[in-house]
């Protein structure tokens, strides 16, 4: 049978890849993708635990909420990215550093 750990390992790997993407990519959309990867790995964890550990299926409910959130977040993020793009003709994150000291 498939043990809980394998699922945890998969979500761990995908989580780190997502994290890597967020740090690695200069393109704002790339970062968005990374975030999506992280969220998905978290969902996987939730669902894995609700399957293997939890008597009840709370995990899956939380996963649902996360998915809804992810959708809303992606919408807002892209709206912002579009605005930035309209303003500065590129969405290179390293140049968006007006918040510098």
């Amino acid at each position: 049978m498939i043990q809980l750990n394998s699922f945890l390992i998969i979500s761990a790997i995908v989580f780190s890849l997502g994290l890597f993407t967020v740090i690695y990519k200069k393109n704002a959309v790339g970062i968005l993708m990374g975030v999506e990867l992280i969220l998905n790995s978290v969902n996987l964890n939730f669902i894995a635990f609700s399957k293997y550990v939890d008597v009840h299926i709370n995990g899956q409910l939380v996963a649902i909420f996360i998915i809804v959130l992810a959708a809303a977040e992606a919408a807002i993020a892209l709206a912002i990215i579009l605005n930035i793009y309209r303003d500065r003709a590129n969405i290179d994150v390293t140049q968006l550093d007006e918040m510098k000291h």
Partner: protein
Amino acid sequence: MIQTALFIWLLPLAAFTIQILFGKRLPRKGDWVSITAIGISFVLAISLLIQALTHYDPEFVVTASIPWIDLGSFKINMGIYLDNLAIIMLMVVTTVSFLVHVYSLGYMKGETYYNRFYAYLSLFSFSMLGLILWDNLFGIYIMWELVGICSYLLIGFYFEKDSAANAGKKAFITNRVGDFGFLIGLLIVFTSLGTFNLSEINLGVSQGMLSGGLLTAAGILLFAGAIGKSAQFPLHVWLPDAMEGPTPVSALIHAATMVAAGVYLMARLSFMLSFDAMLVVAYVGGFTALFSATIAITQNDIKRVLAYSTISQLGYMIMAIGVGAYTAGFFHLVTHAMFKAGLFLASGSVIHAVHHSMDKIGEHGDPNDMRNMGGFKSKMPITYLVFLIFSLALSGIPFFSGFLSKDAILGGSLAFALAQHNPIHFLLPVFGFLAAAITAFYMFRLIIMTFYGEPKKPKLFEHIHESPKTMTIPLLTLAFLSLFFVYTIPSINPTTGEGGWFYHLIEKPVSAVSTQLGHAVYQMTEHAEHLAHVSGLMISIVLALAGILLAFAFYFWKKIDVEALTEKIKPLYLLSLNKYYIDEIYNATVIRGLLIWNDFLSWFDGAVIDGLVNSTAWIVRNFSVLDGLFDTYVVDGLVNGVGSAVSAFGKSLRKVQTGQIQNYVLGAVLGTAIIIILTMI
């Protein structure tokens, strides 16, 4: 008796107060006030003398005293002690004082501070009489100093002349040095005997409460007071300068009365003089006699000659007391008072005359200088006659009072020397006889230079004229008092005063010291005394005549060329002329030394002590400056330092905010990783 004595004493004081307060406004400037006062005292003194003569008892004593200061254990009583000695002294002082008062009418006429002169004369008479009458040493000391201040005032009478002011100051300070000795002697007597009263002291000493070295010390110290007052050797410098004062003053104070106070004191205290003290007294007296006689030879100022002669004669009296010839010493005091006062007054009338003639011819010179006198015999017959009598008396020529007293002293000193087993004491009679010869010489040198020979300044000579009656009458009375028979009334023998009333009244008091030591200070066998007396007589007459002849040879017959002789003994002559440079020595050592010492102390006071005070203030002030600096730099520095460190640290932290969002994510990840690792360990 006591009331009359009190009257005699207090009248001059009353005159003084009246004179000082209302002198200017009184008619004739109040001179009559003083004269009447002293006149009454004079008459009262005569009455006292008559009473003493009627009693004719050497032991005659009247005393009375009242408590003055009473502090429980420490008591001082003040009273009068009236015995023959005091009565005769009263007589002397009042007569001379009265005559001087009369004489001054003429001499001081027209002086600017005429009234003040008489006030000072009265004050002086008061203090001199007080000195005679008091029955205790403390009282005598008080009067002693008052007499000193009067002499200061009178010497410095012409205070506009710096020399007079200086002389006054010098006189007072030299007297004060003497008084210092007197005070210490006084204290020794008081601490060991607990009393100042003379009779109690006599009792105390005879009971041996004060004896040995301390007694001698007390005696010598009290004698120091006499040295100061009677101008004996070390402290004689003030008397010649005191001639700055008007001549009547010199006559009264510096011839007859004040200077005699020292001798009077020694006479009063002779009972307590131990043998060593007597020796010191004798030698100081003898040496002074010879020493000042040698100076008198070369002086050219009449009053200076007389001043040194006074010092010399005082030396005689002190020597007499020293050798135990008590009555002779006191007798010489009385006779000397008369003819020396006379001499001064006579020289005063000469000076007065010269002064007036100088004013007339408009010449400015020193009226006292004998060198521009000469041949005054014809112009001033009375003054010349009187001057001659006094000089003969002073030189010790028979038939004059001076001879009686001086011869007695010389005889006494000879007897003393004979009685002593130690030949050294023959020095005293040698001093005496030598001085006698020199006295005769300089007196006649003076007479010749002023009265005989031809006038050295003819213009001056015309205007010389005899002094007015008020001046010549006192001179004549004094001349009369210088004749011998006045003192030897019951016996006419001119050679000795033994039979006289004077010798009868004045007995040598029993020396308390001898009773204490159980043996007489020295025995004088009857025979030795007589022998000494006769031989003394012979020698003194011979020497006096020799002196006179020498004077005539030198100055009248000009046998010996005076200038050549002075050239030959130039150094000796200069030495004597300049008074053995004693004044200069004193000035150089004592006075300048003192001034330098004072300046040093004053500098010390200013620089060192004030310096200390100011430097502490300086140190405190600088310390506060340092404190301020420390405060601003160190403490503030610290505070600012912390501030800047924080801001520097903050600046370095700012770099972390790169604006790159991905760095922050990375940072967050690293942070969480570290935290997890830490919790794991």
